[in-house]
């Protein structure tokens, strides 16, 4: 018996990621600390670069490979590049972090690559079973990564919380997938789409759609399934938070786009109003929730909820334009957020007040290279012109109005208006507050041994790696890679704000990949 014919060229990005993850894991076993701290991240970056190269090489392909289990097309490849950008930034931000060291460098970076692989499989999935495999492959490494900062109580709490809530989400999703299979009699998306009109008002089918919607809404932090987001984001090591905020979100939206716009498109009249309602709730909950936050990571968590609401508008309209608008927004969403997370990482290490908003006080005066990226990121998230966020919003509103959802466009802009209240608060902290208003650093308590380690030597090591007690807000650490991430992301935000056409072309290719839509 012969196995299915496999187009290895189309599969190459997946192979590269898997191989890279194994090599990184093995390299992490090296005894030399220098190899672990130096070579492992470099190998990870190399894997990312090779995968990105392969993805670009395979551009404009449209082929269902491995017995039609994986759909490799421009949508998959575009989103893969988005995940890789998020992962590359996460590697750079983790370079000197305590989290990656405590987790043993190899495991940390290998898990990161595995998670990217899971995302790639998820958005390429053309079959319900593959979808679930991708979903779990993405989630399980992240549960671990959230808890890697083992000396911080919140990190463990965050990992555990994510595990529990994530499992509920996975279970719901799996249950829903089972219903879909039961109704359609096949697991491939093609079978689902073919069965489409026959089962469109089958109760079994509709129950399945609803449960799948809920399961994916958990992952995309769509309200009211978003409650885990602020807690997990706050507790996880900041580079991982940044990665989750951008890449997981992109993966969740990728699979929503493919599943709903390809497999379930025949039931669009049923699920589109439900998603539209969820979008409105999400926009309101996210924006209102963010207003009172003083922790920057919680603030960005709620902001990511709100942004998920905007992007849902692109899903609701079920047109290629909507897909393109969502992909466009996802791409710029990555750079806008990473700039902010890079600045938070830098300030966490320097200021000693964690990710509190007061860590940014006076930044405009003392650290312009961090202040401007933060400012640009916030302006872009709020949708100000001359940043990419402006065109992202225009494109989404355009897609919404184009298919008769003008009211959803209005909801988006009203949400953006509310969001100013918190984005501008961050900008005010950067430029308009004096560093003297910063509360005393909370150095004590951060080196508290919890379950792992706990020896005196380990504590001393942690203290040396972190902030020296009493260093205060003025301390400057040499962390060029973090500043680099912030500045590059901010620059990309501005460049796409002035000349977005290349990104529009990519997004349109991705949208055209969904041939079932008009």
């Amino acid at each position, binding site marked *: 018996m012969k196995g299915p014919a496999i187009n290895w060229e189309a599969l190459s990005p997946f192979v590269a990621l898997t191989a890279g993850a194994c090599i990184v894991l093995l390299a992490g076993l090296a005894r030399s600390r220098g190899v672990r701290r130096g070579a492992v991240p470099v190998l990870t970056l190399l894997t990312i670069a090779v995968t990105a190269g392969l993805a670009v090489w395979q551009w404009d392909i449209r082929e269902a490979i491995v017995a039609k289990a994986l759909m490799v097309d421009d949508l998959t490849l575009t989103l893969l590049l988005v995940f890789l950008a998020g992962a590359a930034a996460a590697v750079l931000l983790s370079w000197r972090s305590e989290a990656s060291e405590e987790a043993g460098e190899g495991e940390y970076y290998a898990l990161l690559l595995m998670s990217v692989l899971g995302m790639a499989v998820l958005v390429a999935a053309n079959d319900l079973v593959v979808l679930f495999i991708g979903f779990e492959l993405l989630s399980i490494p992240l549960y671990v990564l959230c808890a890697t900062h083992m000396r911080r109580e919140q990190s463990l709490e965050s990992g555990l919380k994510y595990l529990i809530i994530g499992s509920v989400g996975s279970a719901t999703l799996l249950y829903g997938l089972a219903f879909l299979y039961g109704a359609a009699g096949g697991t491939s998306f093609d079978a689902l789409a073919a069965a489409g009109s026959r089962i469109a008002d089958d109760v079994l089918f509709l129950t399945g759609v609803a449960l799948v919607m809920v399961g994916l809404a958990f992952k995309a932090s769509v309200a009211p399934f978003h409650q885990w987001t602020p807690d997990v984001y706050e507790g996880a090591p900041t580079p991982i938070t940044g990665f989750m905020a951008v890449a997981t979100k992109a993966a969740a939206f990728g699979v929503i786009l493919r599943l709903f716009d390809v497999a379930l498109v025949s039931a669009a009249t049923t699920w589109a109003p439900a998603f539209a309602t969820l979008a409105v709730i999400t926009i309101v909950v996210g924006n209102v929730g963010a207003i009172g936050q003083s922790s920057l990571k919680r603030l960005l968590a709620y902001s990511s909820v709100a942004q998920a609401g905007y992007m849902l508008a692109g899903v609701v309209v079920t047109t290629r334009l909507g897909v393109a608008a969502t992909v466009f927004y996802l791409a710029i969403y990555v750079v806008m957020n990473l700039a902010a997370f890079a600045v938070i990482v830098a300030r966490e290490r320097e200021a000693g007040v964690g990710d509190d908003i007061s860590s940014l006080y006076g930044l*405009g*005066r003392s650290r312009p290279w961090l202040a401007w990226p933060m400012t640009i990121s916030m*302006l872009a998230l709020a*949708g*100000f*012109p*001359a940043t990419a966020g*402006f*065109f992202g*919003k*225009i*494109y989404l*509103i*355009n897609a919404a*109005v*184009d298919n008769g959802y*003008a009211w959803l*466009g*209005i909801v*988006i*802009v*009203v949400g*953006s*208006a509310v969001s*100013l*209240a918190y984005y*501008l*608060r961050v*900008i*005010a902290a950067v*430029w*308009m*507050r004096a560093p003297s208003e910063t509360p005393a650093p909370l150095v004590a308590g951060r080196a508290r041994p919890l379950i792992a380690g706990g020896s005196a030597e380990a504590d001393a090591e942690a203290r040396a790696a972190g902030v020296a007690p009493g260093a205060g807000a003025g301390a400057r650490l040499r962390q060029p890679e973090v500043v680099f991430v912030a500045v590059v992301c901010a620059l990309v935000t501005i460049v796409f704000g002035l*000349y*977005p*056409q290349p990104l*529009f*072309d990519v*997004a*349109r290719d991705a949208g055209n990949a969904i041939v079932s839509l008009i």
Partner: protein
Amino acid sequence: MTLHLTILVFFPAVCGLLAAFNPRWVGLIAAFVPLAYAVAMVADFDVAGGLQFVTDDKWIPALGIRYKLGVDGLSLWLVLLTTVIAFASMLWLAVRQPSDRPGLFTFHLLLGETAVLGAFVAQDLALFVLFFDLMLVPFYFLVGQWGGENRIPAALKMVIYTLVGSLLMLAGAVATAVLTASNSGHDLSFVLSDLVANPLPAGTQKWIFFTFALAFLIKMPSFPFHGWMPDAYRTMPLPALAFFSGVVSKVAAYGFLRLVLPLFPAAVESFHTWFLVLAVISILYGSVQAFTQTNARLILGYSSVAQLGFITLGIFAIDAAAQGAQGALLQAINHGLVVAPLFFVIALLAERAEGSEDIRDYGGIAFRAPVLTVLFLITALATLAMPGSANFAGEFLILLGTFSSVQAIAFVAALGVILASVYALRFYFRSMHYRVGAQVQSFELSLRDGLVLVPLVLAILAFALYPQLALQSGEEAVKTTVQAVSR
């Protein structure tokens, strides 16, 4: 296809990036080049030529957004006004550098100039919205970083208030383009001439009209959307405020003429009476507030509410001869020209009264400062539309237009002319004459301050003699705009 307008618009901001090295000279050069350009453009302008100096290039084909800039009779003089006021502000900054981060201050002000110029010359709806929203960013930073008391809440309030309007306008703009494309069967296009050629059905026009009108009424500000104005005016640094009050509010008036009237004629026709009523309330409310306030900045702020009420009145008069709109355009220029020097005068008065900006602390400043007094008097008389001033011509045309449109409203609005003399003269007399205030230490206008103030006052005088210049070049464009509605 010319580069002129691109240079005009972007020179200030790009040059401003260098302001960290030498804020004084970079600021002056960055503001002088556009001024020279604008003067040359006015000289070179062909009155019967329609849209001129056009730049039309593809920018974002995916969205049908083109990089189209152009100047016509509506925008020509407003461009000149912007460059004049910006240069005056830069001159003021050059002689009085802020002690804290002058480079950044200069950069933000220049970015503001770029945004305003961009909004005036944009011939593409999305481009206009982009510049219109961009205008807010530098002023947020200027208020928040260099403002006085309560600067952070005031800055936040200003941004949220005005951006609520602008964001709704963004949705409205996208809806206009998308619905026009689907109605007419053409490709998606944001270019104004394409949109004007294919008007939307009346029902659609109405809801989109409100998103635009709200944005512009907030920006002006007009009663009852002026809530952000007192806080922002009280705390904004003066050189920025002179530019903001003199020019930024005019973009809103211009927006009505450029976008609202041509794009939504049916909606304007059905709602214009309501806007006339709103304008009259603005005039009366602003005037009454202006003569009860004691803070000099707020007197000017509320007087601006009243003046912009006049401008709104002229725009929505929609009279057959388009006299109201012509008056409105003239008055927009006049108001910018008088309000900017008045803000500089406030700074000079405050210097003579231990920094107070309350007119109760002033008095008797005239005795030792005759030149300053003369300059102040000329500006104040222009503000109250003394016959012979260009403001008189402007208000006269506005009232004439309103009279031939809705008589009753013209009668009530004429009260505003009287009230203007009350608040302008009260401000002038309380400061310059009366008993010498306890904290007043008057001295003559210094040469360097005269350098800023005298040319502005000369411009007012020159314009009083030749308001025809602006009227003639604007006449054709205004008439086409208004008659599209009344047709």
